[in-house]
């Protein structure tokens, strides 16, 4: 950094550019300050106006989302979304990305991602009760993939296991589109009381501001701006000090914060996430319409001689900022000291509307807070929503000559193969409320509300190849799939969180993917009355101009009001009849069959008929509550064949599928038509289930039987359950060995 003779940095155009600020943005800063900023002030503007903090490319489009509903207590805008699940209980949840850090240092990147999302949730007064993760890696053959999988999975487990929050589910895909940019999206779900939810708006004048948690070091300085910039070949060299997670301190923070939250000592609280002390203090002040004055000498520091710039931009983990009720300072000190955390009173709220920082008795920053938020760039980037790929007719898709081989190849392909190697490294049973987790490969994880007979159901989903082929339909589909997965376990879907992972928004076609996906997602949200209550956007996921497949990961949460009525894909019994609900056309465009068997990645994705989807799902839920079904599984990747296999694996029992009626066999078995469910029902329930479906205008047909130890389809495959299971379970351990 250039310095003038008095050893004070001067702000050159290069420095402005290095901070990722455009000339126009710098002009606004000059105007609002009425002078040149100093380096601290410039750093603060730069992180606040980065893509990561300001959502400048996506904000106006995110505003389209349905965010309100009967059950929504708090939508987007706080640390996490809050929904009402009755009896005074609230569920607080959010999903977040840690893509860039995880590519650079997979263990710590993933670990700190988990830590960060947990803080967003317990900041609001919730005890974290479940973690999920949605992972996308490059193709298995890529030289980095194996070590990235190893590191990311170990990091997620290392953090979540230590903190003692069960990791109950997720999804894992492999595709060459992620070779240079993996995706690590973590979701946390917490439980609070509706009358004890904490918010971030600072209130009152002269109230003490407390810093709690780990000391501040020089970690990840400029992390927030890094997360908003594209990679190039040098970026592995230019990395800042990597943030290291300390799950031990996180666990102490959770316990200490929840202990203090049980009193009336906290007025407002905010975790220090990206852009650390800067964004936390400014957000608290801005939301509360107050000013803040901090004495940086009081900030607990890990290293000597830290500058104000470093302290304000540090991304050291496991830190919180809070406004404490005057008179309750000692109470706060006592709680945090009991839990052996660093704690300091570092400042106070003021009536100036300004952020004032003091360091070694000098004022090192004095800026008005309002423009940091109000004047944050809100770009209307040019976009062009890509047209859907053309529909491929089934007759243009070659039928396999060897169904046994096709089934084996699909069941053992990296996207569909069992992820047991991953989830056995996660503690799924701690807290003893996990009902049916990854153990049975369930559609949604089920976590009981402690001490009650109700449960939340949680799932994450997106099918990037559909979004790539048609952002709008793919956007609808990912929301619909979460809704369907929650339905499968008998839950009432309530709301979603999302993590929108895309490439460089400065390119109109990428921006178009984002806008298209948001609009599609939103249409599904509205059709299901299934609002978005929190989320995260991760852009610039591209390397050397190669963007990732558009990946809007969706995390859905629903409620099972009574745990005496739920379902999973485990439970099919000898002699049960298999019923398929929903319409089958044999849609193979953008399917796994097309990709894995014919090596073609093309074609329009299956459309989602939201009305039919809703009708069918509502019926499935009703059947579960009437205990009409023994097992339920939705049809997704790989179609009917794969759904039947997964149900067979879970229940450890064979399945035989009938001949297809009116549809070529490959489309019948592997087609990915949406909005469908496979049910295993007792023989005496078959007629009532089918006739009621018909009354409701839902297509329902008997498609096979449960029993024996083989998986068969008339005219198609005939393999042993055990042999197929070995293929399904075998791929990942073998790849990782």
């Amino acid at each position, binding site marked *: 950094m250039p310095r003038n003779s008095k050893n004070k940095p001067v702000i050159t155009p290069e420095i402005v550019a290095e901070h990722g600020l455009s000339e126009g943005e710098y002009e606004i800063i000059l105007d609002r300050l009425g002078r040149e900023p100093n380096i601290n002030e410039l750093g603060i503007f730069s992180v606040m106006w980065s893509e990561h903090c300001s959502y400048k490319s996506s904000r106006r489009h995110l505003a389209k989302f349905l965010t309100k509903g009967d059950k929504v207590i708090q939508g987007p805008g706080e640390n996490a979304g809050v929904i009402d699940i009755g009896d005074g209980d609230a569920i607080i949840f959010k999903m977040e990305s840690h893509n860039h850090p995880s590519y650079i240092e997979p263990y710590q990147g993933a670990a700190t991602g988990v830590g960060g999302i947990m803080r967003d949730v317990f900041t609001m007064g919730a005890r974290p009760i479940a973690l999920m993760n949605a992972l996308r890696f490059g193709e298995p053959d890529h030289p980095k993939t194996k070590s990235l999988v190893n590191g990311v999975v*170990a990091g997620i*487990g*290392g953090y979540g*296991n*230590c*903190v*003692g929050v069960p990791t109950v589910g997720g999804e894992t895909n492999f595709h060459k589109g992620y070779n240079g940019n993996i995706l690590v999206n973590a979701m946390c779900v917490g439980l609070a009381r509706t009358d004890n939810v904490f918010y971030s708006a600072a209130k009152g004048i002269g109230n003490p501001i407390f810093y709690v948690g780990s000391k501040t070091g020089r970690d990840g300085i400029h992390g927030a701006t890094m997360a908003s910039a594209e990679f190039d070949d040098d970026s592995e060299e230019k990395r800042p000090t990597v943030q290291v997670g*300390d*799950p*031990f*301190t996180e*666990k*102490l923070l959770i316990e200490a914060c929840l202990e203090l939250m049980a009193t009336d000592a906290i007025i407002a609280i905010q975790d220090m996430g990206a852009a650390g002390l800067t964004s936390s203090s400014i957000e608290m002040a801005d939301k509360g319409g107050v000013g803040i004055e901090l004495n940086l000498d009081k900030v607990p520091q890990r290293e000597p001689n830290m500058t104000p710039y470093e302290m304000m931009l540090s991304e050291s983990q496991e830190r919180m900022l809070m406004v404490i009720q005057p008179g309750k300072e000692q109470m706060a000190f006592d709680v945090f000291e009991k*839990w*052996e955390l660093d704690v300091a009173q570092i400042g106070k709220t003021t009536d100036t509307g300004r952020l004032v920082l003091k360091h070694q008795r000098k004022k090192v920053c004095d800026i008005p807070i309002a423009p940091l938020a109000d004047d944050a760039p809100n770009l209307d980037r040019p976009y062009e929503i890509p047209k859907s790929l053309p529909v491929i007719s089934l007759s243009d898709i070659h039928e396999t000559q060897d169904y046994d081989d096709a089934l084996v190849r699909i069941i053992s392909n990296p996207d569909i193969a069992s992820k047991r190697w991953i*989830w*056995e*490294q*996660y*503690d*799924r*049973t*701690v*807290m*003893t409320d996990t*009902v049916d987790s990854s*153990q049975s490969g369930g559609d949604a994880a089920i976590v*009981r509300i402690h001490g009650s007979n109700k449960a939340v159901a949680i799932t994450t989903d997106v099918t990037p190849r559909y979004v790539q082929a048609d952002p709008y339909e793919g956007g609808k589909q990912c929301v619909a799939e979460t809704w369907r997965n929650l339905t499968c376990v008998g839950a009432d879907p309530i709301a979603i969180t999302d993590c929108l992972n895309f490439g460089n928004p400065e390119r109109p076609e990428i921006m178009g993917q984002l806008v298209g996906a948001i609009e599609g997602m939103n249409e599904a949200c509205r059709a299901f009355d299934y609002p978005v209550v929190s989320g995260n956007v991760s852009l610039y996921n591209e390397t050397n101009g190669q963007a990732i497949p558009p990946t809007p990961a969706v995390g859905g949460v629903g409620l099972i009001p009574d*745990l005496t009525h739920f379902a999973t894909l485990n439970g099919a019994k000898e002699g049960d009849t298999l019923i398929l609900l929903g319409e089958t056309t044999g849609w193979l465009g953008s399917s796994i069959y097309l990709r894995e068997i014919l090596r073609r990645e093309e074609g329009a994705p299956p459309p989602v008929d939201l009305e039919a989807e809703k009708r069918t799902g509502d019926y499935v839920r009703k059947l579960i509550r009437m205990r009409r079904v023994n097992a339920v599984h939705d049809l997704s990747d790989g179609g009917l064949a794969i759904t039947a296999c997964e149900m067979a694996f879970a229940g450890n029992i064979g399945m035989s599928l009938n001949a297809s009626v009116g549809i070529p066999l490959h489309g019948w078995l592997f087609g990915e038509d949406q909005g469908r469910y496979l049910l295993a029902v007792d023989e005496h329930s078959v007629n009532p289930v089918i006739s009621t479906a018909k009354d409701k205008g839902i297509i329902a047909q008997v498609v096979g039987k449960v029993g024996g130890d083989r998986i068969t389809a008339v005219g198609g495959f005939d393999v042993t359950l055990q042999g197929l299971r070995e293929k399904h379970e075998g791929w990942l351990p073998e790849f990782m060995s």
Partner: protein
Amino acid sequence: MKTAVIVFPASNCDRDAAVALEKITGHKAEMVWHRETTLPAGIDFVVIPGGFSYGDYLRSGAMAARSPIVKDIVTKANLGLPVAGFCNGFQILTEAGLLPGALMRNTGLKYVCRPQKLKISNNNTRYTSKYGNVSEVTFPIAHHDGNYFADDETLNKLEKGGRVVFRYDGNPNGSARDIAGICNEAGNVFGMMPHPERAIDPLHGGTDGINLFKSIIESI
């Protein structure tokens, strides 16, 4: 019947242990903070719960074993107080010297969480008497450092004394002689890596853990 659960910084199965104790005894367990120097009066049974006390830093269980409350537990255990450690609790008991041997990194070097079949090697201990002639149970395991090590002499002594209480059926972590749980010579101190407190409710997938708690509680 008064029971206590010890809470260390980053214990994380403390609540789970308390839930199990309350379910079996009908009374709430006392939660005792590690900085206390003595157990509350009249405690009949102590559980050292699982978790990652002190983040598992240095060695799992090492720092917790040196905390003030453990001194008092050691004294009282030596006078006959029943003390059980599950998972991290087992590690703490070995580190504190109440049980022999040590728990090392799993040979696979990975954390493992799964339901684990166990063989009851001795149905006549204070922790297994209620199993009658049941010889096999399933408890969840969830650990990174569950590889039980002791020298041959110690192992022989354990076996001769009937102090190997549970063995793995299908060793998940490399433990010597498939050992999953052991007790001290007097039979009042018991440690195991698997989690009986995670197997007490049908929704957990099984209730095999109940009899372990019943055995010790009824022996008091």
